[in-house]
């Protein structure tokens, strides 16, 4: 139990941040669409610091674009889903997690720069893979550091 709590702290903070960003991204179009302009503008303004917010590259909700693009939406969903997967597993110390995380992350980064897929759905899937992979890598790194710093007993 102590082992899990220690190495899950940092990934948990990342996942919480991702979840907050996702909620804000959905709150922006919901505010403008349901309550009327400018209810959601604060969220758009806040998230403009981390995303280009191109409307044609974003999913739309209530006739307004989400406050982050499709790739970012997929990415933050992937981070959250990756954390849930890590939480449900015994612990991301195995090489399988490291290899899988690296493969997913590298594929997503390559896709983003080369752009071999088109359309918002594919961008979101690519982002999801990247976010999921990143979370596995972060979890592996945290577990490794926890072991090295003797924060947790070696199994």
């Amino acid at each position: 139990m102590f082992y899990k709590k220690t190495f899950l702290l940092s990934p948990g903070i990342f996942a919480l941040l991702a979840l907050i960003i996702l909620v804000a991204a959905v709150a922006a179009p919901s505010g403008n669409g349901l309550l009327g302009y400018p209810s959601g503008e604060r969220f758009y303004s806040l998230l403009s610091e981390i995303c280009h917010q191109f409307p044609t590259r974003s999913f739309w909700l209530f006739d307004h674009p989400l406050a982050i693009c499709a790739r970012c939406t997929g990415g933050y969903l992937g981070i959250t889903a990756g954390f849930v997967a890590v939480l449900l597993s015994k612990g991301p110390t195995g090489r399988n997690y490291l290899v899988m995380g690296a493969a997913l992350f590298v594929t997503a980064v390559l896709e983003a720069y080369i752009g071999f897929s088109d359309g918002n759905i594919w961008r979101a899937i690519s982002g999801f893979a990247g976010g999921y992979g990143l979370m596995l890598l972060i979890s592996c790194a945290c577990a490794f550091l926890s072991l090295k710093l003797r924060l947790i007993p070696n199994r």
Partner: protein
Amino acid sequence: MKRAMIFLLAWLPGIALSAEVRLPGGTAIVLTTTSSINSDTSSVGEAVTAAVTTPVVIDGVTVIASGAQATGTVNRKEDSGMIGQSGKLTVEFTSVLAVDGTSVPIVATKTIEAKDEVAGTVVVSTLLCPLALLNEGDAAILPAGTQIRAISIGDVTIDG
């Protein structure tokens, strides 16, 4: 009876072609800048234009066509300067043309800021060479093709 039918047939297409459509306030409109805007070469109040990226369709009737022109101005700008000071630029779009020529009031603001180099310039000039203080920062550039989200203000009736 025959005359009435002819009148009705002549009148019906007229109704279909000149349907009045209400564009509600708060409608999202996607704009794309058509030319690059540079903080060092533009001036406050200078007119800027953008084109509508995706048509606005209300009840199956296109009220703002793709490619329709949106107009605005450079609202605020700061030139780049010595000691790595970066340029800043804010453009504001205020209206877009509907299919019947009506000017639809909108609100759309985009602020661009070049990467700030002040800290790096001060560190380099202190540690290596004071001449580094002459380093001029980058101008803020809003490139052509940048998408901007606009919102229509107030209800506007348009002949669709």
